């Protein structure tokens, strides 16, 4: 798998609205290097698939790097905020994964949907990141992150999972998004930190 794309995180402050980026970048810094036990300095390569399903080999590598000094020019406290999140001094640590996934989705939009910008964010309804707010024809990106589990975990997010004796059935995001008549275009942006795999696929239309 060759690196097909390299992205310097400091570009994100220009590619997307700074207000979105400033709260997501510290989580990316805290979350992406974590848990692998291997190399803990950028660049970090994610094996990215553009299709749901299909062979694991059909991936491209997206390399993500950052220069903390360059990031500081956009957000002077970025490293300190990342350190606090990394150290887990929080009872709400699940938000770090969520936030980092949002940051990486912003990266994916910047790389894979060049020129398009996030204009809104949803909390209770899909898609998480909105590119076009037109009522009845919303366009956006649904986001999810998993700390571990690799492609299997991401597939369960996309396709859902049947009920087991220990857990109820989980509805897949793809089916839910396709059921929504008010969405004109949706992409799924799924990220896993260990191993570093990702999916960015258009599920609608």
């Amino acid at each position, binding site marked *: 798998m060759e690196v097909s794309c390299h992205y310097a995180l400091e570009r994100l402050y220009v590619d997307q*609205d700074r*207000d*979105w980026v400033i*709260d*997501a970048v*510290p*989580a990316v810094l805290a979350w992406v290097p974590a848990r692998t036990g291997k190399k803990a300095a950028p660049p970090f390569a994610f094996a990215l698939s553009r299709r749901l399903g299909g062979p694991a080999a059909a991936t491209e590598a997206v390399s993500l790097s950052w220069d903390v000094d360059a990031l500081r020019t956009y957000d002077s406290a970025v490293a300190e*905020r990342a350190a*606090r*999140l990394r150290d887990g*001094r*929080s*009872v*709400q*640590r699940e*938000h*770090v994964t*969520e*936030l980092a996934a*949002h940051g990486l989705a912003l990266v994916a939009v910047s790389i894979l949907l060049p020129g398009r910008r*996030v*204009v*809104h*964010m*949803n*909390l*209770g*309804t*899909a898609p998480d990141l*909105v590119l076009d*707010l*037109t*009522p*009845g024809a919303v366009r956006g990106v649904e986001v999810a992150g998993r700390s571990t589990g690799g492609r299997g975990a991401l597939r369960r997010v996309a396709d859902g999972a049947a009920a087991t004796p220990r857990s109820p059935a989980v*509805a897949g995001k793809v089916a*839910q*998004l396709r*059921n*929504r*008549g*008010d969405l004109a275009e949706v992409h799924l942006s799924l990220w896993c930190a260990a191993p570093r795999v990702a999916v960015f696929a258009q599920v609608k239309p």
Partner: protein
Amino acid sequence: MSIELYSSVLGSAGRQKLRAKALLAAGDRQSRLDAAILLHEAARTEDRALSAVETPDARLRLASLVEQCACLVEGLDPAGAATTWGRVLVASAEVPSPQRDAVRERLDPMFGAAFKAFRAELRTWKTIRRTGRLLPDSGVDRKTARRELEGTMGVFPGVSSLWYGVFRHDSAEERWKAAWKAIETARRLEPDNSRYAAMALWIAGKAIGEGGLDRCLAGISVETSGPEVLAMYALNQVSLAATAPASARGGRLAKALAAAIRGESLAHEAEYLRGYLVATRLLAQSLCQGDEPGHELLFQAGLGRQMVSRGEVPANDPVEFVLENVASSIGRSEELRV
């Protein structure tokens, strides 16, 4: 409907949500409160954006209400979310099943879990449930009730009525600075609550001094305020007029009278205050005419029973009597909402 208008009203809500998520991830007490305040503002913005759409279709209405409810759940306010949840259920009836389920897929488990957790938390309230009061009468019960309130507030800092409960405790114990902080937090969570605004006016002079009270009064819009705020506004203007230089006295009394007249005209929105609203207008009118009002005005306003039951009437200060009774009436009425 204008998409530009819709988008511009929705404006900052998305950014507030992401900022709130970052604060929740930081996890400390203050960050969680700040996140809750941002998410409450985001919910209000979503509501305003929906109002900007002239004829929203059923799907848009449902999606917006789901979003508002989710903001309140994530904003650690299951009590507020429960109210919006009712609107979600009503709007759901107009959207066919597969789409309705898809829109609510994320919210239903979120709300269910928050509602259950909040109910479980309220079941730990032994003293408040036994006495039926956030602010019980006995000192021992008050201490326990306060601990119960603060315990729940630590878990759900987005519930404005919990902050209001703490305000009631602090003001009863004349800890005015702490009471001010609590009522201001309740107001930041629910700025449209007329009763919180009125109670803030009640203690402003005690907590932040006459200058602070004056700044608060200057920020009040008589045209858009509710009857509780108008009564407090008028009574405070009257109080300040008593010590104001002669040149400023007339202006304050005129403002008091205008607010009192408007307040009385809105008495149907606050029947429990009707007598006090009438009394406020009579007091302001009398002072504007240069008279020295006595407590017979209070009888004229229909407050005879309250004067008997209170046992004592400040002989020369009917303004103080009305002010304290308005505060006490608002205090009790708001408490019942928790």
